[in-house]
């Protein structure tokens, strides 16, 4: 009774606040402005595989499979799917769905989309990776479609959750036609009104949407790349929700009675990659500045020592304002394939020194660690903290940070310029085979594409291969556990923490926060 009363009072107060705020903020009850943190380069859903673009496109276009806020696949334009045999998937499509221009959605639109994906001219990053497993498409009836794959493809539904379905009419429409809105008629919860590059994207509600109807009649996604500007726009009430809340502002935002924070464990791991490939690595030297042979980072004991030297709790507490979780694996608990046995290494400098001594480096060595300074939340500060922690464990550590544009090209294949580097990885599939395949697997065709330390372990590779060919979820999960436990025992990389994704909204507005960092207006609602 008492609680109910309080809630009513609170509700009334909020409503009052909202009403008084509405005059200043301008937009009416059914209008929403969102502060988006990164530039959108196109609304063509197949032009540039980039999170901010995909985020915007997901308002206008649906996928066969929709990921929920915890990145678990669920029905989208497909109502259900199953495997017919190890290399055939059958998808049952939703009936009665209409595109924004009124035409019906059928299997032909799926076929057209799959044709368009690898075709888009000048695409700086295509979605071919999500569709390349499909060898043949078979339309059984207008609402049943079968995909034949070259090899067993247990991840196909997840891959297809990143492929936005366009109208078959626009199979050969150039990117410009989508940007202008001519071809941007999807089946999604919103219709595109206007795309102003570098400034805003405007949507209006699709009243004929097949799914839950969005609350907002009009939505403006404003591009506010500067952290301070984004926060100020929220405080001033010009936007009602912002994404990527900067750590520096968390304390004051928490204290602001007009705002609410919404948080969820994200799919992004921040970690250190170690060069465990070269016999002589460029940024490790003995105390006289001479190269050490063999490269100490090849020794798992040294890698373990480095991991034990890091005080993860301190980084999370001081630098991340507690909005992160110390990491012991490749993906946070709760995602598919995450082994329950993997825990973050404790902070144990004594044990680290012992391991270093056992590995033949009782006096440590000289090391330079590299990282970007404009890419991940607090990247530069984290790297500096890690440098100090290494130094305390007896490793004479220098820190060098670079802009991402320079860092990424130097750190990656074929240059591999660094010895120890800080990087982040968001798992697009929301399960563990993704970071295993890209970060840990031996560099080869389709494997180890971001394995910047060139770690290689035949056993891990074999387990991963087996997992990726296993359609049965239960069996695959066990294989992924084994593979990641093995890789972590060997310290294939040093996990630091999992990020927590935070949104801030005006009071009275809620958001279902998402592990994939997307900000989707259909899930923003009044309280």
């Amino acid at each position: 009774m008492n609680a109910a009363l309080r809630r009513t009072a609170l509700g009334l107060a909020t409503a009052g606040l909202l009403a008084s705020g509405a005059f200043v903020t301008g937009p009416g009850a059914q209008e929403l402005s969102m502060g988006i943190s990164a530039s959108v380069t196109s609304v063509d859903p197949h032009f540039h595989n980039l999170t901010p673009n995909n985020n915007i496109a997901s308002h206008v276009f649906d996928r066969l499979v929709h990921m929920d806020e915890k990145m678990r696949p669920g029905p989208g334009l497909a109502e259900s799917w199953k495997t017919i045999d190890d290399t055939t998937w059958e998808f049952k499509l939703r009936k009665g769905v209409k595109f924004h221009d009124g035409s019906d959605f059928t299997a032909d639109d799926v076929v057209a989309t799959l044709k368009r994906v690898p075709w888009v001219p000048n695409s700086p990053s295509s979605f071919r990776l999500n569709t390349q497993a499909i060898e043949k498409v078979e339309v059984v009836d207008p609402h049943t479609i079968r995909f034949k794959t070259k090899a067993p493809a247990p991840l196909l539904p997840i891959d297809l959750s990143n492929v936005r379905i366009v109208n078959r009419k626009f199979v050969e429409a150039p990117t410009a036609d989508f940007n202008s809105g001519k071809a941007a008629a999807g089946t999604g919860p919103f219709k595109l009104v206007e795309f102003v590059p570098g400034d805003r994207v405007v949507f209006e509600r699709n009243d004929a949407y097949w799914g839950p109807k969005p609350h907002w009649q009009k939505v403006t996604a404003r591009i506010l790349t500067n952290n301070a500007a984004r926060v100020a726009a929220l405080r001033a009430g010009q936007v009602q929700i912002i994404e990527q809340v900067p750590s520096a502002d968390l304390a004051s935002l928490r204290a602001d009675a007009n705002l609410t924070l919404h948080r969820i464990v994200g799919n992004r791991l921040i970690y250190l990659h170690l060069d465990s490939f070269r016999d002589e690595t460029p940024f490790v030297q003995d105390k006289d500045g001479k190269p050490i042979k063999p490269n100490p980072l090849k020794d798992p004991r040294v890698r373990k020592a480095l991991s034990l030297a890091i005080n993860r709790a301190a980084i999370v507490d001081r630098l991340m304002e507690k909005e992160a979780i110390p990491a012991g694996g490749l993906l946070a608990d709760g995602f598919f394939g995450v082994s329950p046995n993997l825990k973050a290494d404790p902070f144990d400098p004594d044990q680290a020194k012992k391991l270093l001594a056992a590995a033949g480096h009782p006096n440590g060595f000289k090391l330079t660690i590299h990282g970007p300074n404009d890419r991940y939340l607090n990247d530069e500060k984290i790297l500096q903290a890690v440098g100090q922690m290494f130094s305390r464990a007896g490793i004479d550590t220098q820190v060098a940070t670079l802009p991402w544009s320079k860092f990424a090209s130097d750190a990656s294949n074929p240059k591999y310029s660094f010895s120890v580097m800080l990087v982040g990885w968001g798992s697009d599939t929301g399960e563990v085979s993704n970071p295993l395949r890209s970060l840990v697997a031996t560099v080869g065709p389709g494997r180890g594409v971001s394995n910047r330390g060139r770690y290689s372990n035949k056993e891990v590779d074999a387990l991963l291969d087996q997992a990726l060919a296993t359609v049965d979820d239960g069996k695959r999960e066990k294989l992924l556990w084994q593979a990641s436990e093995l890789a972590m025992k060997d310290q294939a990389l040093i996990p630091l923490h999992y990020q927590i994704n935070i949104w801030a909204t005006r009071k009275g507005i809620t958001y279902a926060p998402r592990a994939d960092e997307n900000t989707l207006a259909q899930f923003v609602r009044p309280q």
Partner: protein
Amino acid sequence: MTVFVIRRLMQSILVLFAMSAIVFFGVYVVGDPVEILVSHEADEAERARVAAALGLDRPVWVQYFAFLENALGGDLGKSFVFGIPAIQLILQRMPATFELVIVSFVIAVGLGIPLGMYAGYRPNSAGAKTIMAGSILGFSLPTFWVGLMLIMIFAVEMQILPAGGRGPVGSFLGMQSSLFSWTGLGHLFLPALNLALFKLALVIRLARAGMRETLLLDYVKYARAKGLAMRRVVFVHVLKNIMIPIVTVLGLELGSQIAFSVVTETVFAWPGMGKLIIESIDKLDRPVIVAYLLVIVVIFVLINLVVDVLYSVLDPRVRLAAKA
């Protein structure tokens, strides 16, 4: 004067040429655009496809000559990330920056010259001392910080002006600009003020120094002796003379504000050219960086030309042909 103008334009072609080479090879040294553009999961085949699609698989000098060939035909290349012609991208952003710069110049000149002249005319008055102290703040406070303070005060606390972004555009005589709508002007005011502060301080100081120097010259005494009103002496004869250094400095400032208002445009989320160049550099979008800097060279050349012509108007002793 025609000879002078033509010779100037010829020289600028050389500058353009040098600029294109420096930027083209400079960006190449920074990093590999393919690495920045592709999805983090991209395999070798996808990387090769992107390199080929963007013409990055050829040796850099081949790319450069291909660029030059197209550039002579007026095509400066397509943006890697937007997929549209770089020059179109720049022109789309130009009006936003131009209106910002225009308003900030109106503020700087409209306030700066009278305030500076007053401070020079009555240097010992309390008003003059306040103006000069204020101008020191204008110089020394970082633009970034002032911008945030303006937002905090006018948008967050008082809630009378928007925190950022460009307002709706109105049209006037077929031109589309947020200068022509009231809401648009509201959006313009804070960023323009932020951008104007430094120039305002500069103009005040120049006007004051010029005023103090000029008032002591013989022709002022002569004009007074001749019986001209002080008002006429100051606003006609003195003003014309103190304008020369102001025009020079404003000319230089104009170019750099059009090109590099990066800080203000970022803080106020203003979709102008400065934001475009900084984002293009982050993404190694070479066609845009090159095209942008070439456009900027052209703007600088034109502004300097106008400034030189203005000199001869303001001061009949300046002969353009002789200078060239």
